[in-house]
């Protein structure tokens, strides 16, 4: 269908607004000026400068319409630059400028023009003919927030911030008060940013077309030497960031609108928490511990020391006396090199990564069920789903951008089910919150399956055509006693039944899960039961469905893909298989590969205590702080002959090391991260390495070389070349190349021609041929059965929005000002029974030890349950966590710790 722009006919797209139509046809985003419009926001129509004249016939009588919210209709004549329209725009600008600071009409000399300044320059800056009248120029700025500042004297009331807060982040912190000329932006209950419940995402700052809302870095008006797009390091969402650099220093970060993953949005970590990168605490020189004290040494000395020691230990105790822990924060290329060094240059499979303490059960369980241990669908499928089943995850805190999308869907009324022992804000919004006792995941999933079967809501066609062993599973759950499970889980069976029906009845249902699933004694089993749910209802292999793990760290998917696991090499091939050994040996150009699978991290620690493991090489991981049962870890470390750590900062782990190598941060190197939806995205070097640091990949190449293996891509770490090698080794990444990754990356499997994959197991065609049902009984965690009586409370741990894991980076930014401490959430009645007041510091203790932590009364936990975080070394919560782990993968059970607490 056609419509006319200045009397010339063009095809328009149904539903397209006049604004989009004109912009598209004229290929000019400034074809029509706008102020209140933002592509990411719903059309609003407040500023009216996008008005155009429209007529039903050529040069016929016209009406003036706002182009941003008027759809194009057939044979419409659009005139967007007539004298009348130009006059209207200028007259509107004149009105706006009658209540706008005169010194802000033009950009300051050293600043880039704001979008508003650009728009008024485009329209033509009018003389303000109105005599001075009432205005808002005296409004006081609000500087209460560490990152965000508001100066409403520059506000033009376009509502973009208010809409961004609601429509992008899903909050309603920013609002409008009053009416008419007196309307003004408020925060919360008309208070300061700091007093409000602002989540500091900065969406408002990014969209504000003036400097009414700015960040402390004044990112919007920076004239940068360069702006580099890279991938955020802070979680598995994989936001793209535009990093602005002036004089070799990072000066600000914005979220690019062209990013498929984050669509112009990011959270306070991605946007603001970059100051750690040149913090004085950054390690800048290699160090060797001599006589109990670290001394700065040259790189050569450090490397020689490491190589000499490793060779010596290997000679004396064999290759299997050496182990390594790689890092889910490092790039794919670096993880690949690390596992290669351990396997090819040293000759052992003792390589593991921090997935061991988070998502190993996901990888294992999904491989057992489907054949692939990765998200079946993409985040964009959220737009197509009818139901969201969120299990053991709080993405608003840990995956804020995906969390915000889920929250949007919840608020707009998609069927929503949350299983979580904590009443998170998503749980509060959900249709169903199954607030289970921590550790009863298997029980609740068996209940859900039971009711789906009982209500006859299974997708028998899918089951028959694409799966196996359903009958065993069915027989198992059919016979379970719901009353018993109701008591165990603490959730009414009526509610479970309703939730089960709601899930099963939804046309398309998406499952998301987090560490609340995996960090349990029955972690892998829970993953397999979640897989069952998807299979029994046919929620696999199409858009808007599937099982989608919310990956914790930025590259936890990639690290596993690269072979950072003791039992599988790069590309998930079993290392115990001689064929695969031959394959790897050929690819790596070595004679032979180690024959048997290696040790998982907990096994390495046990082996160290037993004296079997002698050396541990750690890349970017604070094992002491983050692994459970700290005293046990310390004991293991004390027993090692050599500990090498590549790190950004001194940590509890580096303090125990013999050699500390200063690593470059992700701003200082190239590479790729793979997000939770299997999307390999570029990490682009933004600045030169700080001090005398090197990228982790460079250090591995250097050490490997001294061990006698020269990396074939050259002795200089070159991510693009390492990618070529990875593409050659990993069959499902055949088409991967640095060039092809482009701005938005590729989702694996990547075919040889570069085609990527948004969705796995299409139409039920499982990777492993046929989907497999498993069935399990609930089993109480040994932590509870052994210690529950003596320590009657269950402690569960989680994360807060402001900090990233052990906080090494975020604590060295203003995020620490926003959230300076860990607290213990306690149900008020539990605390009161012990005579403990809100905010009082208590001693919390388990069979392993005790720590002190301030408490916070909270009804987000049920009675008998406590919750805390592990961001601050002052608390060191892992001194009390235990050694129970997932049976299949040994992932520690951080989520269930038998404890008690008392006044001090």
């Amino acid at each position, binding site marked *: 269908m056609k419509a006319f722009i200045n009397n010339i006919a063009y095809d328009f797209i149904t539903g397209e607004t006049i604004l989009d139509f004109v912009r598209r046809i004229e290929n000019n985003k400034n074809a029509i000026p706008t102020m209140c419009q933002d592509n990411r926001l*719903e059309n609003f129509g*407040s*500023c009216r400068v996008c008005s155009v004249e429209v007529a039903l016939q050529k040069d016929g009588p016209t009406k003036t319409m706002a182009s941003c919210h008027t759809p194009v209709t057939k044979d419409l004549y659009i005139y967007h630059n007539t004298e009348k329209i130009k006059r209207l725009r200028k007259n509107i600008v004149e009105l706006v400028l009658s209540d706008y600071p005169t010194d802000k009409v033009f950009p300051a000399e050293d600043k880039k023009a704001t979008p508003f300044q650009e728009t008024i320059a485009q329209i033509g800056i009018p003389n303000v003919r109105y005599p001075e009248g009432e205005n808002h120029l005296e409004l006081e700025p609000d500087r209460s927030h560490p990152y965000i500042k508001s100066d409403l004297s520059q506000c033009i009331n376009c509502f973009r911030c208010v809409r961004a807060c609601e429509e992008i982040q899903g909050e309603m912190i920013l609002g409008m008060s009053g009416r*008419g000329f007196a309307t003004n932006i408020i925060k919360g*209950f008309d208070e300061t940013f700091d007093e409000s*419940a602002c989540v500091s995402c900065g969406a408002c700052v990014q969209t504000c077309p003036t400097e009414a809302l700015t960040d402390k870095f004044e990112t919007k008006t920076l004239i940068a030497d360069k702006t580099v797009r890279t991938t955020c390091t802070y979680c598995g969402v994989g936001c793209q960031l535009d990093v602005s650099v002036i004089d070799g220093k990072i000066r600000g970060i914005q979220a690019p609108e062209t990013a498929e993953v984050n669509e112009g949005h990011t959270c306070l970590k991605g946007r603001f928490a970059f100051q750690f990168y040149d913090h004085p605490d950054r390690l800048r020189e290699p160090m060797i511990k001599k006589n109990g004290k670290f001394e700065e040494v040259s790189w050569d000395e450090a490397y020689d020391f490491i190589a000499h020691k490793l060779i010596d230990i290997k000679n004396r105790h064999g290759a299997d006396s050496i182990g390594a822990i790689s890092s889910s924060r490092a790039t794919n290329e670096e993880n690949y090199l690390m596992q290669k060094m351990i396997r090819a240059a040293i000759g052992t499979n003792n390589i593991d990564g921090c997935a061991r303490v988070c998502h190993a059960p996901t990888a294992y369980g999904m491989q057992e069920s489907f054949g692939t241990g990765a998200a079946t669908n993409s985040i964009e499928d959220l737009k197509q789903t009818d139901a969201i089943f969120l299990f053991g995850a709080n993405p608003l805190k840990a995956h804020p951008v995906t969390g915000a999308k889920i929250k949007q869907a919840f*608020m*707009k009324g998609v069927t929503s089910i949350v299983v979580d022992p904590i009443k998170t804000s998503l749980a509060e919004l959900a249709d169903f919150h199954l607030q289970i006792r921590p550790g009863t995941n298997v029980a609740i999933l068996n209940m859900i399956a039971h009711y789906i079967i009982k209500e006859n809501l299974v997708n028998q066609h899918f089951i028959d055509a694409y799966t196996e062993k359903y009958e065993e599973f069915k027989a198992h759950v059919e016979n379970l006693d719901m009353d018993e499970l109701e008591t165990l889980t603490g959730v009414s069976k009526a509610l479970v039944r309703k939730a089960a029906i709601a899930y099963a009845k939804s046309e398309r249902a998406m499952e998301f899960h987090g560490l609340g699933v995996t960090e349990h004694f029955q972690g892998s089993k829970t993953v397999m039961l979640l897989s069952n749910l998807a299979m029994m209802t046919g929620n696999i292999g199409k858009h808007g469905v599937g099982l989608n793990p919310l990956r914790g760290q930025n590259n936890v998917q990639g690290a596993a893909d690269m072979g950072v696991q003791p039992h599988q090499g790069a590309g998930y091939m079993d290392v115990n298989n001689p064929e695969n050994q031959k394959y790897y040996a050929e690819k790596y150009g070595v004679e032979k590969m180690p024959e048997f699978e290696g040790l998982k991290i907990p096994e390495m620690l046990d082996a160290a205590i037993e004296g079997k493991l002698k050396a541990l090489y750690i890349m970017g991981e604070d094992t002491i702080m983050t692994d459970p049962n700290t005293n046990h870890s310390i004991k293991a470390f004390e027993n090692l002959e050599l500990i090498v750590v590549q790190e950004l900062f001194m940590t509890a782990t580096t303090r125990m090391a013999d050699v500390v190598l200063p690593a470059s941060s992700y701003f200082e190197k190239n590479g790729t991260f793979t997000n939770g939806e299997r999307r390999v995205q570029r990490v682009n070097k933004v600045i030169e390495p700080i001090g005398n640091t090197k990228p982790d990949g460079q250090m591995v190449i250097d050490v490997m070389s001294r061990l006698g293996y020269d990396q074939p891509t050259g002795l200089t770490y070159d991510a693009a070349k390492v990618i070529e090698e990875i593409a050659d080794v990993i069959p499902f990444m055949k088409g991967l190349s640095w060039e092809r990754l482009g701005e938005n990356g590729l989702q694996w499997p990547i075919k040889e021609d570069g085609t990527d994959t948004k969705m796995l197991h299409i139409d039920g065609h499982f990777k492993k041929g046929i989907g497999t049902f498993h069935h399990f009984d609930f089993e109480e965690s040994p932590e509870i059965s052994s210690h529950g009586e003596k320590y009657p409370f269950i402690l569960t741990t989680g994360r807060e929005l402001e900090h990233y894991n052990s906080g090494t980076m975020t604590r060295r930014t203003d995020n620490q000002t926003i959230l300076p401490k860990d607290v213990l959430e306690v149900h008020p009645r539990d605390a009161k029974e012990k005579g403990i007041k809100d905010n009082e510091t208590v001693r919390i203790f388990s069979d392993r030890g005790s720590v002190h932590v301030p408490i916070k009364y909270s009804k987000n936990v049920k009675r008998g349950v406590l919750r805390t975080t592990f961001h601050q070394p002052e608390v060191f919560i892992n001194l009390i966590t235990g050694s129970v782990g997932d049976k299949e993968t040994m992932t520690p059970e951080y989520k269930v710790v038998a404890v008690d607490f008392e006044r001090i």
Partner: protein
Amino acid sequence: MANKNIRSLSSRKGLDDNLFENIAELSHKNAPKKDFQKLAKRFLVDDSVIVGTSSFYDFTREENRAKKIHVCSGTACMVAKTQTNLQKNIEKHFKKEEIGHAACVGHCHTNNAFMFDDKTFSAATNEELTEILSMRGQSGTPNNSYNIASNTTPVLTSKIEKVSNFYALSEKFKANPQQVIQELKTSNLRGRGGAGFPFWFKLDAVIKEPLNATGEETQKYIVCNADEGDPGAYSDMYLLEHQPHKVLFGMYMSGLSVGADTGVLYIRGEYPDSIRIVSNAIQELKDNKLIGNFKFKIIRGQGSYVCGEETALLNSIEGLRPEVRVRPPYPTQYGLYGKPTVLSNVETFANIHWILENGGAAYASLGTKLSTGTKLVSLDSFFNAPGIYEIEMGTPLATVFNEFGKGVKSDIKAFQLGGPLGGIIPMHKIEELSLDFESLKSNGFLLGHASVVSIPTDFPMIKFLEHLLEFTADESCGKCYPCRIGSFRGMELLQKAQNEDYKIDQHLFADLLETLEIGSLCALGGGVPLPIKNGLMYFKEELNQYFTSN
């Protein structure tokens, strides 16, 4: 469409536990901050949503919560110059901070109007006032009488003999909703709120809305716009208080025909008696089981003219700020809580019974071809016989004013017909006009809601225009730039020209009017230039002194 999240969260509790009513209740109680915060938490929204809404309305905003008595500031009372004296009298009984304002309480026929004790009154003397104040807390309806008559077959003003018989008509149409739409189409009933949009079209659009994803009939609503905010208009008040069943029946039939089970009446808070009377009428229907499962809900307005704009009204019911929405989508597709909604004016609904009883053709034979049926006209106190008159469309205005209004009491230079956005008709033009959409429009005026406010010869036109812009500035929702800033700057210009040695740049003023007219998002900012331009055109001599000459 903005605010989808807040709208959706509000809809979870819907009309029974209505967000807007909750906010109003807390505001009237002058509840502490923590109660508002609890409310926000209960609705899963942030505090700013609650503050945003409560700060919007005259009767909920914080600075007005201590007001005990509200003096009418409507146009009719203003031109009658009764309010200065009334204010003085009231100040004898109340502290200044206890005295608020209400934008027209519908006593345009007597003036001296105010609202007190959830009732509206007129008191010309301190004695009358003292007596009214002494009756505080007593039940009963205060005297608010005016003339009522009709010049044709009474459609709206006829008496209902027996309510059950009146509702029995619905039985005839239950099996065939399409016939309702057909009769309404034949009748050519046009919306009586001012825009004159064919009413059947809305029913037709809503009935055609697709089923929801699970194949079920989606929730639909009937909404009656009883936010008769036009100062000078009290014809809806008449219908609500004297003919509530005509209105309710019209809504009920609309509901039956499109498959909506709920009707919402949004009645302005300045009409407390209307709310009581309609509420009793609904109770009567329930008690006598006359409307099956159909539900009625009254939402009380909290003092905001812009809520008469249909999309602002919908936002208001939802507890959102009543900022005008963009269109499309239209309320028939995305109305109350985002559901298909038939929304029309009180008087539109009140016509439906007669049309269905007598047939669309009979209705179409009343009035003119394009403006069928009758129209209620409200005349203000300058007429010798102020009141509500049901006039057949197409009747000469002079007939209305002279035969029914019995002429005016004092020197009048112009009439504003159709509310604050209606045209200012100079006395000499009255003879040329008739009461219908077309006659008025083609002469540069508007039928609007057909209220008539007289402008006395000694009332300065500049003051009248200032009042119109001040009203617009006061009532602007603040969303679109032309209205938010433009009406305010316009008011400032007119004030400055009267109070200082300042002449308004006539080009600037022309630009301002054009910007308001073509740039505004809704009819408030877009409509106010019409009477101002009428004023400038017909009262040039009087106004020239305030403007530059070139």
